[in-house]
């Protein structure tokens, strides 16, 4: 019984749940490390962020795109078949939908959090 259930629509993986927040974390660390190294290695104390800001803009576009793709996939997973929330049936379909819905919510949160972090680079233009 289990072999078919586990492979329903490709094997659901717990790690996919974390894809959104992991994207947020990667974006966050890249932004922080880029700015920190840029400021630590620039010659003057209040040097402009210049190239670091461009890099952060690029990271942000890529991260938001990845998050949107995850959200789209998760949305389709959540809408699979006909059942609606709360996805608490003892069936492989509802397990599949639940994971999709939770992933969707997490990618939404990540999207917002990525925008928050990127806003810092919109308002701050130098290393002061």
């Amino acid at each position: 019984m289990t072999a078919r259930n586990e492979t329903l629509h490709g094997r659901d993986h717990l790690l996919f749940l974390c894809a959104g927040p992991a994207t947020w974390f990667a974006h966050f660390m890249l932004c922080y490390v880029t700015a920190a190294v840029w400021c630590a290695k620039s010659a003057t104390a209040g040097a402009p962020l210049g190239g670091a800001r461009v890099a952060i803009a690029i990271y942000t576009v890529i991260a938001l795109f990845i998050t949107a793709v995850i959200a789209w996939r998760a949305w389709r997973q959540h809408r699979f078949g006909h059942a609606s929330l709360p996805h608490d049936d003892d069936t492989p379909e509802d397990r599949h939908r639940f994971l999709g819905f939770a992933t969707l919510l997490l990618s939404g949160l990540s999207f917002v959090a990525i925008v928050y972090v990127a806003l810092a680079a919109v308002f701050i233009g130098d290393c002061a």
Partner: protein
Amino acid sequence: MTKSEGQERRLREVWRPPPGWRYWSAVNNTQIGAWYTVTAFVFFLFAGVLALIMRAQLAVPENDFVSADTYNQLFTLHGSAMMFLFAVPIFEAFAIMILPSMLGARELPLPRLSTYGFWCFFIGGVFVCGSIFFDAAPTGGWFMYPPLAIQQTGIGNDIWLLGLSFIEIASIAAAVELIIAVLRTRAPGMRINLIPLYAWYILVVAGMILFAFPPLIAGDLLFELARAFDWPFFDPARGGDPLLWQHLFWIFGHPEVYIIFLPAIALIAMIVPTAAQRPVVGYSWIVLAAIGTGFISFGLWVHHMFTTGLPNISLGFFSAASEAVAIPTGVQIFCFLATAYAGRFVRSVPMLFAAGALAIFVLGGLTGVMVAIAPFDFQAHDTYFVVAHLHYVLIGGMLFPVVAGVHYYFPLATGRLLSERLGRWSFWLMFIGFNVAFLPMHFTGLAGMPRRVYTYAAGLGFDTLNLVSTVGAFLLAIGIAVIVYDALFAKRNARSPDNPWRAGTLEWIGRLPLLPWGLRSIPEVHGRYPLWEQEHLVRDVRAGRGFLPDANEGRRETLLTSTIDAAAEVCLRVPGPSFLPMIAAAFTGGAFIFATYKWWFAAGVCSLLAVATIIYWLWTGTSDQPEKPEKDVGRGVTLPLYAKGASSVGWWSLLITMIGDMTAYFSLVFGYFFFWTIHDDFPPPESALQDSRWMMIALAALLAAWLLTLLARYANARDRAALFHGALLAGALLASAGTVSLVLAPVAAGLDPKAHVYPAIVWVLAGWTALHAVLGVAMQLYAIARRARQRLSARHDIDIHVVALYWHFVAITAFVTVAVIAGFPRVMT
């Protein structure tokens, strides 16, 4: 005697705690969970008394009730004990006790590991707390900032560093245990969309421990090397920087706040639906909250460092993340409120504490949003405003939910209900006392009173506020004393009926109190609240109509199931009572405790004895070969008795442990790059490792040893004994040679770790890698011995899979170490 009674008698016999003095060799989760809970509460009361002494000192200005030095010991030990000996361990204690039965398991998958963790916690906690009775307690504050904490003499700070590092073993052991429990020991049918919310929270928190505690262990290592051997990691005169400690400490310290908060809020997630008598509203949203908070909590650490002079842009990122974490935190609170409103609200003491918790926590959360704004923090930093904020968060987010949990789960642990009347008294005393104590501290802080001062001058506007806080603190203490009184004398209270709160989750399925076997038989689960949704479930389980209703081979057994759909896979045999975990913990403790006094010989002997005990424990107690390949587990299902290779509990536990190990290692690598960013020339030209030949030899030898270990795994699978032994022996020789050349590299370059931070960090990276390679050799030799004694074969192959998995990580460590030390400087020039 009916068939069911016979089965029950055998089960009782198998799971019975050992009698007499041997009781202390117990490893079962119900006993360990109870010991853990009681020990953590004793440390809580101890740390609470320290707080009362501080409040007595601060009640009036220019008081001399305690000296400045004693006061330093008091606040350091109060913070450290509350965080490391109560807040984190109490979650482990509760989870060890209730998680298995909530998941429909008989026992945790690695009972001896949690027992080892408990004894480490117990010994380390007594050692750290005991120090104050010898006037030798740490004085550096609970976050031990250098340079002060390095310059302070005496052994107090060493006790903090080594004692608490030792206790962190317990947390990591619990994390390994709990992750496997949630992922692999759920009752059949308990799919991932059906698991109790408590289990979701525990899974997230255990994962967080793996990434949060190791940076502190890495920091402790650097700190102790600095204190004991004068290595200059935090000394600017020799290239070091005290800020590295702040980074490592808070990469641990901020997630730690959520490691404390999430399991406590998890208790609320169980209590609220029961009180409302309906399923929780927004199950998926709460899962979002748990996972989202878990991740974002790792992007907050610099908000403890807003005043250290980092560039504003860095502060901006962390400020943004600190605001973002309020979103998932708020979501779960709205879900609980919605559940309470949507259901039939049944008034009870646990619900009273849960409501109080939410009220206090929301206030703490709001001041948290305030201090997350960097300019506000510049004003409030290191004042009593922060003291007020953190106590609102921790007491609202942790203590009140834990007391709610104590009231809720007391019948499960003891079979008795706590008194309703005393519960209400204690709640109002605690709630009023808490607010009277801590609300004024916001104003004391805004008026400018710094934290951690042992006294203050009269007439600065602090006098009345402090006196009020002291009165509140004692009121709070009286409230806690009422609970302690109630718990100690609960024997006079009425016996609890089964399932007294009419809850819907599995831990309430049996008779009270919870018996060591967990459940009479393991049910098949079809919903989130099986007791509400599945008719006749209680009757069937109690009549032994579930899985594993019997123990006819006289072994302790539970089920291993698949991670996503909880399909039954293996009948897992778990070990019974043994003194080995306690002995191993005592020797491990000796190694840390003697090192505090710099009694290196005694510490070395204890380390060897600890290793010997653990090897004996592994040899006699793990990868047990069953007497038959499979057994009938009831309900017409037959399952194998041996989980092979990568599906075994041993393999999973090593994988999880090594994730933590890698985090510690990458924290050290972070240290290297941190020093690179603060220096114009790093490595400094005069001491750079010019000749990288030894490094390259080491890398080649260690990678070859890794490949040979994989070859041995292949040979074992095909039962080719000669190839197996040859590959592992050659691997062990090459690994030894690699270890030697790894150490020779800095020796040949004449790197003196005391001279500058560059040689010091190179020595640390090389030493860390060498130590892992030595352990790898020990594992290879162990596998050779196991196969020679026919305890390892193609069919029973766990040992070699575990060794090969370990060697993957050694290979990564060796590669990164050599790439950083020998490769990075070349790339940069």
